[in-house]
């Protein structure tokens, strides 16, 4: 494996487990209040390669492009030639959790950040809350985005009130990863079937309340597992407790999950990612991915956005348009073990890579499961529907039981 690709995959695998599902941003207002806005702004301001005013008022391509997002999604390998040809200097900063970007933005980062990359649930939550964070996009400056799959043109984390705020880059699902030598038939039909004693000493779960509660909620038949009552949440915890005797460990990250399985301490992981297969292969282990036949799994997607008051908008538009091109979009999807977001890119993928993900989902005119599916519960209680706090407490109760 190319060392650069491995480095990118390792960073992704060892990132915070919830980075795909965080919608919460914290403002860090204590520092502002105690020390004074001016002092904190001065302390937080970093030399981010601002384009000199007057010389390039944001309308000319070239100069710095300040990226804040998941490592790898600034596509250093894919975009190298493009950046050189256009005199753009990528200046990346990486986040572990999606809300890191909002925190940085609100504590001196506004006016310093250009391009951002984050997950759909976080972006949707920001749009729902009406927070000033992502800039409306002029899609006329991203002509390649016309190739986006239908699901990515109408999704609620992409478009709001007729205005587009994000441009999806990659997507994927959250399957089980397993050792086919031990489990040739793969995972059972339902997540609740993991309570069978035959799975004793085999299971490793991602240490993430949202993944596991959602999946078990799906297994219990809840139409929308992200919106459940306290009684339903209690039922989910009971169902998870039935499987708990068979759990060996909780993976702190996707990479940690693979490590536990490669060491032979577990052989079936819940809440995995296709990219884990490559890392396992490099360590001499051949694993496989699959989802329970009846319950299925959920899907995620990461998208580009432009920060409000971005100092280099021309570079942002040029870069996003480039990444929406057929070849770059196909390359980044293959590099990160994910699905591509444009139809022309799909045509360039190898047949076996095309089969990795259910593209019929994203071809759907009604937006498919990515449009309708949400993993995270509401931030605040909504009538009987419990919020994220209730889920994290339930998860801790489950782990302590």
């Amino acid at each position: 494996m190319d060392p650069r690709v491995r480095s990118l995959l390792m960073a992704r695998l060892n990132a915070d487990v919830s980075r795909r599902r965080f919608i919460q941003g914290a403002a860090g207002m204590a520092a502002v209040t105690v020390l004074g806005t001016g002092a904190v702004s001065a302390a937080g301001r970093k030399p981010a390669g601002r384009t000199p005013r007057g010389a390039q008022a944001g309308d000319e391509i070239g100069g710095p492009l300040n990226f804040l997002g998941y490592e790898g999604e600034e596509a250093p390998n894919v975009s190298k030639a493009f950046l050189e040809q256009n005199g753009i200097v990528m200046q990346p900063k990486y986040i572990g959790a999606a809300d890191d970007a909002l925190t940085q933005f609100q504590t001196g980062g506004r006016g310093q950040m250009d391009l951002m990359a984050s997950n759909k649930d976080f972006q949707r939550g920001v749009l729902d809350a009406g927070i000033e964070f992502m800039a409306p996009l002029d899609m006329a400056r991203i002509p390649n985005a016309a190739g986006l799959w239908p699901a990515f043109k109408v999704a609620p984390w992409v478009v709001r009130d007729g205005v587009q705020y994000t441009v999806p880059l990659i997507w994927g699902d959250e399957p089980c990863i397993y050792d086919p030598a031990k489990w040739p038939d793969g995972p059972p039909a339902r997540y609740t079937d993991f309570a069978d004693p035959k799975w004793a000493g085999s299971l490793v779960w991602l240490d993430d309340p949202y993944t596991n509660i959602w999946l078990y909620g799906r297994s219990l038949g809840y139409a929308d597992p992200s919106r459940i009552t306290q009684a339903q949440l209690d039922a989910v915890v009971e169902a998870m407790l039935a499987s708990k005797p068979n759990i060996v460990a909780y993976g702190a990250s996707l990479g940690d999950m693979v490590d536990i399985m490669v060491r032979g301490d577990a052989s079936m992981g819940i809440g995995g990612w296709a990219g884990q297969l490559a890392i396992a292969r490099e360590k001499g282990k051949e694993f496989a991915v699959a989802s329970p036949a009846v319950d299925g799994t959920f899907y995620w997607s990461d998208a580009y956005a432009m920060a409000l008051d971005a100092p280099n908008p021309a570079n942002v538009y040029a870069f996003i348009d480039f990444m929406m091109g057929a070849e770059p979009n196909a390359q980044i999807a293959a590099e990160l073990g994910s699905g591509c977001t444009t139809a022309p890119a799909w045509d360039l993928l190898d047949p076996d890579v095309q089969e990795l993900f259910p593209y019929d989902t994203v071809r759907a005119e009604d937006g498919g499961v990515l449009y309708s599916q949400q993993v995270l519960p509401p931030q605040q209680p909504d009538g009987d529907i419990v919020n994220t706090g209730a889920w994290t407490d339930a998860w801790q109760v489950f782990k302590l039981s």
Partner: protein
Amino acid sequence: MTVRPPAGAWRQLAPATAFYLVFFGIPLLILLVLSFWRQEGFTQVPDATLGNYAGGLTNKLYVTVLLRTILVALVTALIVVPIAYVMAYLMRFRFERRANLLLGLVLISLFSGYLVRIYAWRTILGTEGLLNTALLQLGLIAEPITALIFSPWAVMITLVGLLLPLALLPISSSMSNVSRDHVEAARDLGSNGLRLHRTVLLPMVLPGVGTAFAIAFVLAAGDFVVPTMLGGASGGTMIGNLITNFFRSSSADWPLGAALSFVVLALLVIVYLVTTRLLRWVSRR
């Protein structure tokens, strides 16, 4: 007679004091202010509420985890400190000529990263790890011992392994100041074995032992990586894991996290003071 610090002492202390004030004192003050605020949606709202402290102390889950954390930290420290004490004694009075080499061998593990050492323990304790492989090869066991990894035992063993070098340093330093003449004089006067340690050595190295206990106890109580990586499904959650969630999750509640942090800080100080007072009392009897 009052002993005054030498002239200019405060000036000499000023850089270090300033450093701690800026990088420790002020952030702590910010956290303290934050602990009285409220979380509303995505933001923290200035307020003067005790609700976070009340919520933290009356939540059964948090109290359970807090008590478990104190217990684990206490047990870890009570294991680490005696081992470190014995090692320091042996290096000072039995293997004096090799003391630096032995100390170096113990401290060499600190040269590697914290996470690297935790993964090393996984390699040692794992189902297909070094220990199980050796025992299987020697024919001492027929099946790997799965309880060695991803269990409370694994957490305890790893914490002891990680903290022992740190605890050894202050005790070793105190022990190096104990003259061999004191030990020989005590033996001549009939003090041997345990009594020698309790009545002569321990009072002399008490500052080092107290520091070692503080290091082991506080670091064990605050650790959230070892329980995450090695605690397994059987319950590796410590208070640090809970507090981390409040600052880095979709249910972020910085004020509650800050309040819990200060509750933990207060409890750790109380436990530390009680334990060191107890040590002092034992050494005076």
